[in-house]
């Protein structure tokens, strides 16, 4: 496993109305974005309980992205403001327990921002690739570096 170059697994929760549309646009515009992203379409960024993001991290993802509409553009008027509060909570919890809070990312990408979507995904994948595998996935396991 050591010889192979580390390829991160990134789980993306993308809102139906903006970021998922941007992902489609990036695809139809033939913009390249890395296959490391595993997109999950959700109806609104506020429907994602941060526990699901934490769970993805524990079950093997190296990072998670929550993509929503720009503030003020939410299809459900106020969903993304609530999502932002939830991300603030989960990032603070991770930071306070001295986990790496960069593994959770919140991005606002609107439906017309295909190029931004591709750029953010490329940049974030590169960032996580340089950071290396997440330690969080070893929570409640016998593996990981430091244990014995």
């Amino acid at each position, binding site marked *: 496993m050591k010889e192979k170059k580390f390829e991160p697994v990134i789980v993306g929760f993308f809102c139906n109305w903006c970021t998922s549309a941007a992902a489609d646009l990036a695809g139809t515009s033939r913009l390249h974005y890395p296959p490391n992203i595993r997109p999950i379409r959700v109806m609104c960024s506020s429907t994602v309980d941060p526990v699901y993001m934490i769970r993805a991290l524990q079950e093997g993802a190296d990072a998670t992205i929550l993509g929503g509409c720009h503030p003020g553009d939410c299809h459900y008027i106020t969903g993304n403001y609530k999502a932002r509060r939830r991300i603030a909570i989960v990032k603070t919890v991770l930071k306070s*327990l001295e986990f790496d809070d960069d593994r959770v990312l919140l991005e606002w990408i609107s439906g017309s921002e295909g190029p931004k979507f591709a750029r953010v995904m490329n940049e974030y994948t590169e960032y996580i690739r340089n950071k290396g595998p997440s330690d969080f996935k070893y929570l409640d396991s016998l593996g990981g570096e430091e244990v014995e």
Partner: protein
Amino acid sequence: MLKKLMVDAFEKGLIEAVMAPAATKDSYTYALITKKEDVDKLTPIAPVMQWNGADMLRRITRLKKSERKLLAILRPCEARTYKELVKFNQVNPENIIVLSYDCPGTIHARTYKYQPTGIDELIAEIKKGGKSNKIREACKVCEYPTPIPNVGDIGLGLVNTDSPVFFALSDKGKEFLKAMGIEEGSRNADEWIAMHRKIREEWYEKERIRGGRKGLEEFLSSCLNCHNCKNMCPICFCKECFFEDRTVFDYESTKFFNWADDKDGIRLPTDKALFHIGRLIHMGTSCIGCGLCQQACPMDIPLYRLFGIVGNELQKVFDYKPGVDDAIPPVMDFREDELHEFEGLLGGEE
């Protein structure tokens, strides 16, 4: 003294029911009485907090407002819980008068069962402006040990005074005391509160769970995943809990084997640490610090260090003091222009 107040209030028709602790063989439970003859069965200030009184009020008013005028004797932490639960629409405050007092702290329920300590001993300590060293950790580091204005209705001062004093915390309490013909008094508790705060600040630094994954794993290593901490938590009032839904964590066996391959072996059950992190995310912003999670833990994990300290960090982000502020809890509210440091990779929108 509180009993006399209850009997007087019954006779004047100001109250029709009282909820206060009552002794059992090994502990204290909350009791609800509706007759003045039953007042003697109560112990208004108990040395043990087995349940959170605000949670009991939630049970009483969950379906409908209180039909009788109810006087509830609550500790300051319970009064704060009461206020927080009112904001969450879990308690209907109508017809309820809350009396709280300078809390001498409570003893761990299990310690009390085997080595009972009288409440008089605890009160004697606070009358001198100190506090007993037998009380629970959460009580030692209590942030608000005294009644706070606008939290509850009536306060009873015990610190630094030989004759207890009553004072009003709200308009409802003012009316009640006036109707009772009780003069409002005052006592100086600033120093006493400052002592608590100082201990709390030191505690934040000293007991913080550090070291990321390893630190948390070590901290929770003896956890039974019994969910007692969640059951006792007054803020965890959801009828259906994400972590109680067994189907959420049902997987085919191949999934477990694959995890064991990838992670060099896994510990079962797999949702142990996740449960605590998830609970922090769900209720951390409203943790009022009663410490019942720690008392309920059968393995004596000092859980309040997790919830109290991380909860404090969360509350700092939202500049919110649960049960003290009149503002809506952070999880129910939002601003249009806030928290930009949590957006994007490096913080701030492009």
